[in-house]
């Protein structure tokens, strides 16, 4: 223990002593030549296909495994939050190693498309999906659909006191009683929709009202649903399928999904968009991957996890209304790309993240 203690002590002392100088005082002339061993090969031409996935592993992995089995094409997947991956791709720019980006929502992938980083998808792919769930310029296509809902614990919340509109969450009776995931792609997309439909002032007012109403802040939707199911949280703004997955897993739980009405931004139905990076060196294989995600086989797998398949005749998740019977919030998903940046800035400025 003495030796370890001595190391720890001297580390603390030396850390202290180095504080005066700070990292600004590097030795004269630190040239980057030492950091940059010049490598001849930049990207292997026949490396695995790289997928940046904002969808979780549980959801994606089986479909990818089936793709590799069927085609022999290896896929490496980088799993992270949609926003994180979008920021990463934008920072990477032309150097991005990604071939395919599959976002959780239409806004972030639209933002990437808007920067000119996505190539145009082949017509046989885009024709698989109805207009409203793909990019107007065919740079991304929806793979699955999901709707925004308010999940609530049926023991803690009476049906009568459920929020009729998303504006009720700004009221005192919901103070501290609901969860949001402000940096999550789905929440961001919902705010982009609100901005499109209701304008900047109203959206800012709502965000600030929410931020002031002491919401419980989560990183993602899953933990909100879990806390609600466990009775640790009365409710929260999430997507529809988390609860259905929990019910499939745990049987009957004291929680339910509540839909807001027609025209409410919180009723937004969104697509999880996928697109091919313009700089991809294997666009053919990338297109094959997206075709595979839109194959009957993959779509059925997604249906089994309670998301809406977006191909013709893909079916409806068990216990859910048909896609066309969901409350209508009529905006163009393509246009959410235009309100993405203001939405992100407003979420941040409201103090939610």
């Amino acid at each position, binding site marked *: *223990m*003495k*030796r*370890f*203690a*001595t*190391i*720890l*002590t*001297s*580390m*603390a*002392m*030396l*850390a*202290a*002593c*180095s*504080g*005066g*100088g*700070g*990292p600004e*005082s*590097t*030795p004269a002339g*630190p040239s*980057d030549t*030492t*950091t*940059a061993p010049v490598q001849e090969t930049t990207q292997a031409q026949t490396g*695995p296909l790289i997928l940046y996935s904002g969808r*979780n592993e549980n959801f994606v992995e089986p479909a990818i495994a089936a793709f590799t089995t069927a085609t022999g094409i290896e896929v490496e*997947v*980088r*799993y992270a*939050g949609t*926003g*994180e991956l979008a*920021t990463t791709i*934008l*920072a*990477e720019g032309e*150097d991005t*190693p990604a071939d395919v980006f599959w976002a959780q929502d239409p806004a972030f992938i639209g933002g990437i498309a808007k920067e000119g980083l996505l190539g145009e998808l082949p017509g046989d792919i885009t024709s698989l999906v109805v207009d409203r769930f793909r990019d107007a310029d065919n740079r991304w296509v929806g793979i699955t659909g999901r709707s925004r809902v308010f999940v609530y614990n049926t023991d803690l919340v009476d049906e009568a006191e459920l929020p009729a509109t998303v504006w009720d969450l700004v009221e005192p009776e919901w103070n501290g009683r609901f969860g949001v995931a*402000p940096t999550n792609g789905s929440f*961001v997309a919902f705010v982009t929709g609100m901005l499109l439909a209701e304008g900047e002032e109203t959206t800012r007012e709502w965000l600030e009202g929410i931020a002031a109403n002491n919401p*419980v*802040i989560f*990183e*993602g939707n*899953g933990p909100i649903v*879990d806390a609600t199911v466990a009775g*640790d949280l009365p409710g929260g703004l999430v997507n529809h399928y988390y609860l259905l997955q929990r019910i499939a897993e745990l049987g009957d739980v004291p929680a339910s999904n509540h839909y807001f009405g027609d025209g409410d931004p919180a009723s937004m139905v969104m697509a999880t968009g996928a697109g091919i990076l313009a700089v991809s060196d294997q666009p053919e294989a990338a297109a094959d991957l997206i075709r595979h995600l839109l194959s009957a086989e993959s779509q059925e797998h997604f249906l089994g996890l309670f998301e809406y398949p977006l191909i013709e005749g893909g079916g409806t998740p068990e216990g859910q209304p048909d896609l066309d019977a969901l409350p209508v919030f009529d905006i163009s998903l393509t246009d959410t790309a235009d309100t993405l940046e203001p939405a*992100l800035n407003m*979420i*941040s*400025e409201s*103090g939610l*993240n």
Partner: protein
Amino acid sequence: MTAIAPPRGTERKPSPARRERAPLALWVLGLVAVVPAVSPIVYLLWTVLRAGVTDTSGIPPSRLWSLFLSTAVLVAAVTVTTALLGTATAWLTTRTDLAGRRMWSTLVTLPLVIPSYVGALAMLGTSGNSGLITEALRAVGLPGLPVFAGFWATWGALSLWNFSYVHLLGVPAIRRMDPSLEEAARSLGSSRWKTLRTVVLPQLRPALLSGSLLVSLYVLSDFGAVSLLRYETFTRAIYAQFRGRLDVTPAMFLSGVLILVALALVWAEQRVRGRAALAATRPTRAPETVRLHGFTRVAAYAFLAMVVVGALVLPLLTLAWWTVRGISLGSPVDSVIAELVRSTSVAGGAAVVTILAAIPLAILTVRHANRRTRLLESVTWSTYSLPHLAVGLGFLIVALRFVPPLYQTVPLLLIAYVAMFLPQALSAAQIGLRQIGSSLEEASRGLGAGALGTLRHITLPLLWPSLLAGGALVFLTVMKELPATLLLRPTGFETLAVRIWSASSELFYTQASVAALVLVAVSAVPLYVLVVRDLHD
């Protein structure tokens, strides 16, 4: 630039007269080790300082202020708590007549194998309506626990999984205390309390300050626990900005601010410490053992037991419970062997590279100490105090902008680890070199051996135990490291830490616990090398 104060207590023979100019090769090697490690941080600070004075990247100043406050409150609370906990455990296991003192001392050190995000995960698993403790309480008709989240939970988690640093530093400091000073004070009529305040604490001060600095820097840097337990600090905000903005600039700006806060903390500690170096006194005799009786004795055992249960037993039990329950319910659990191989190889690789980088630096700074080598050393150290999320972001941006071929590669990950943890191996190597002294090397050179021959046959073999200790510390830290790994890992390169993180954020607790248990088991090996073996020295 202030001079580096080496831990003098261990220095055997400083022979300044014999110091020669450092060979050029050593400088080259030293710079190769340091420059790649430091340039991303310099770049990050430069971008921030350039832009940040006038433009806060859309982050309102009020927000910065509230982040600063909430972070400062957490740092202060955890630092004070760990100082109290660690001093108490150190004192109880060195100065009293409690049974099993050595066992207790080992047990309160073991929480170091539990990364704070694993601890936080376990905390979430014990509390709330579906928690382990809640279920146990309800089984006997008691009300359950609320969800452990927010300030109190974060405070508890970071205290429980960091106080061991203070314990480790406290034990030798307490052993070194000269009992005659205490006795003199008491015999001159000083009360017990006054003696503690005026005689005992000043002797412990350097160790306490060192421990507190390590803890507070860690708290400033922690990302996993604050995120899981939902307490707003700088690191959580940086990550939120990274996820929730399209541009990396706001995240970089906050990172730069956080780096400045870390440097300010280090500077403040240095002021408080003043000139008091570690006392090198060797007590003339062992201090009197304090006998604890009756209630005090029971309370002492209860205190140690509570600490061990909270920091070690409960988290491990929760992980085990999740694993067993999950597997019996048929939850899908993937093997974590691939993750284990990646974690251990990258941690082992980082340990080796760090040791290799530390050797020339240690020789330069110990055997050829002068103003320039001290500067080099200071620069190396500056990265150690910096939050890993910020360092990771710096490396990500620099690799992308200047060396794209390195982006998302294992070599870049290794360079980042070296940047963050080089000081751990360096200080171990420096201590070793000082203990060896230079006379043997001089004798070898005098007998005609070359510089390399002397290094190979004399210095390195004698230095080996210190290098091993430094390497073990690096290995342990890299195994647990989360935020920089998350940002810099090659696509598909999921380590145990990354797996625990992603599985827990997707609520696959069974998967997360399996990975966490493996991580803890593997981390115990370097801790054994560091602590348990040393205990028997």
